């Protein structure tokens, strides 16, 4: 069951919202949230509900035990390390076993086999939430003895279980105790949900056809324009898919009176790669900053150590996204670019006009997406070659012009949708012409639902992480 499915929008969500609204005590609402979240989770693979429940109990009591053990003692350190290892082993087994075995086989010419298990929904996301919880409990930043019920509801809540944001539980638990549940918030949440749905169904699920057409072509026969169109399509698909989901998650949470964190801030309007990573998957960047980068010393170390810290963090960021060396390469690529910016480029960039800076950033980001979208280094190299005219194919052939012509309007909408203008325009019309604004919202919603009914199933990309 995904947010953009008919059963979720017209059955599950209204039923849970109604039940939630009918009861008053926060404890009863929390029980409803937990029950709904378990049903949501079980929809994909019921067996993994056991894993979710056990992991939640384990991490809650790990936090409590750490808080009750003398801070800085060897025992506390051991409990912390053991708890983190348990979480990482589970994540490693499901997500990285095949990758590790494949790497060993490639290096040692062996033929070990790895078990093929479907990845539990949201495993990467809730593992990181759990590790943040126990790390903060160990350092004394939080008092984890908030009650298992509140913790469970916060970490399992169905709006954010599958694809984040990776909120800190200390921000969510107090809200779960006193949810700001009101008609006004249900309205605001609904608007946010519709925005996300439009991004996913009207933009992401339509631009993906252009990307698939590009990938179906033999790389040696792709013109430069076709290659850039294809990668632009991928860039837009990934952004609207994930930010659309994040908007829906935030909207649904708000409907239940919970304010989830932001995950995107118009990253394709960033003026540098450093700026881009303050706007893209914000909760993940913050997690790596707080729990890997800063503990390693951050930038308060020698230049050599700083370079090392950046590369470790970004290699891990790449690995988090996928169990393949192309993802690690993607992460290291960004680590190198960020270092270049910090030590050399940032002063030059600050003097350039904003449009140039945006173009520079998008160029770097698009090259990065080549690695992210490729199944192998050979494919990535071939795609990079196609982007720059490798193989001496033409700049623009009739096929590329055809795809440009037929997708031009959609591409324009994608470019506009990547900026803050549509939401500013909506806010302005809402104040000046509220009826027109409401009619427009209803029409777009109707269009999105119509697309959902008649389109083939398109899963959320980031659910694969």
């Amino acid at each position, binding site marked *: 069951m995904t947010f953009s499915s008919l059963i979720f929008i017209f059955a599950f969500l209204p039923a849970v919202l109604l039940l939630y609204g009918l009861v008053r005590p926060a404890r009863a609402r929390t029980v409803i949230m937990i029950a709904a979240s378990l049903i949501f989770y079980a929809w994909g693979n019921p*067996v993994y509900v056991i*894993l979710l429940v056990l*992991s939640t109990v384990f991490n809650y009591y790990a936090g*409590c*035990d750490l808080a009750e053990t003398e801070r800085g003692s060897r025992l506390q350190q051991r409990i912390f390390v053991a708890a983190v290892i348990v979480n990482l082993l589970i994540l490693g087994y499901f997500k990285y076993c095949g990758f590790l075995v494949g790497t060993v086989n490639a290096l040692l010419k062996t033929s070990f*086999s790895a*078990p093929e298990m479907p990845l539990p929904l949201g495993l990467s996301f809730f593992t990181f939430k759990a590790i943040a919880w126990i790390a903060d409990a160990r350092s004394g930043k939080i008092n984890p003895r908030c009650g298992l019920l509140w913790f469970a509801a916060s970490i399992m809540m169905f709006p954010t279980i599958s694809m984040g944001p990776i909120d800190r539980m200390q921000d969510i638990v107090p809200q779960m105790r006193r949810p700001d549940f009101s008609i006004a918030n249900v309205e605001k949440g609904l608007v946010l949900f519709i925005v996300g749905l439009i991004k996913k169904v009207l933009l992401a699920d339509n631009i993906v056809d252009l990307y698939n057409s590009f990938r179906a072509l033999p790389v040696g026969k792709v013109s430069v324009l076709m290659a850039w169109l294809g990668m632009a399509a991928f860039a837009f698909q990934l952004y609207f898919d994930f930010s659309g989901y994040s908007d829906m998650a935030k909207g649904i949470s708000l409907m239940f009176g919970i304010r989830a964190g932001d995950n995107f801030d118009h990253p394709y309007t960033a003026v540098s790669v450093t700026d881009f990573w303050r706007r893209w998957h914000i909760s993940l960047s913050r997690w790596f900053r707080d729990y890997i980068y800063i503990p390693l010393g951050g930038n308060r170390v020698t230049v050599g150590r700083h370079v090392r810290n950046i590369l470790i963090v970004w290699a891990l960021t790449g690995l988090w996204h996928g169990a393949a060396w192309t993802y690690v390469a993607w992460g290291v690529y960004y680590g190198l670019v960020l270092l270049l910016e910090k030590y050399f480029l940032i002063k030059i960039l600050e003097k350039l006009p904003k449009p140039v800076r945006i173009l520079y950033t998008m160029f770097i980001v698009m090259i990065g997406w080549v690695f992210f979208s490729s199944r192998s280094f050979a494919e990535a190299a071939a795609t990079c070659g196609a982007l720059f005219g490798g193989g001496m194919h033409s700049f623009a052939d009739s096929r590329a012009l055809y795809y440009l012509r037929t997708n031009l309007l959609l591409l324009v909408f994608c470019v506009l949708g990547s900026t803050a203008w549509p939401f500013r325009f909506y806010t302005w019309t809402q104040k000046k012409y509220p009826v027109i604004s409401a009619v427009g919202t209803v029409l777009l919603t109707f269009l999105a639902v119509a697309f959902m009914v008649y389109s083939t199933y398109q899963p959320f990309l980031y659910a694969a992480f």
Partner: protein
Amino acid sequence: MKKSRIMLILSGLGLVVFMAALIWSQYYPDIPMERIAAALAEQPGIAEMRTEDASGLRRYYSIDSAETEGFVFFRSNSIMSADELLVVRAKDHEEALLYLESARKRLGEVTENFENYGAEEMTKIESAICEVRGKYLIFAVSDNASDWERDILGEIKK
């Protein structure tokens, strides 16, 4: 001992037991195909079917039997029936996944053959079993498909 520590240990043990059970459920030991063939010979519906050889495997699934570590392949004697059973033991899991693609193509062909002609056969086709377990590809179209699958997996895990 503190309650939080007891609960931590118990839930940790629970996780270990759960993961062990999950890993065990996905473990399919290597057994000779003759054992699977012998177990299937006693199954309802099999005796009435025709045993196909390597040329049948190549013809219907484009699988070269020399690349496999054994197979059993039964097809219905009647062209009016979609009943079919294929079990292939691949060299490794990745190879089995390639055979899965062939099986899915075969399922598509069988569907095309019976769509709009045989409602009863279509019911079997729609609940066909087409899966990989470890190194084994299992493809079964029949009213007895679930029983066959259960017995095959039972034999493998014995």
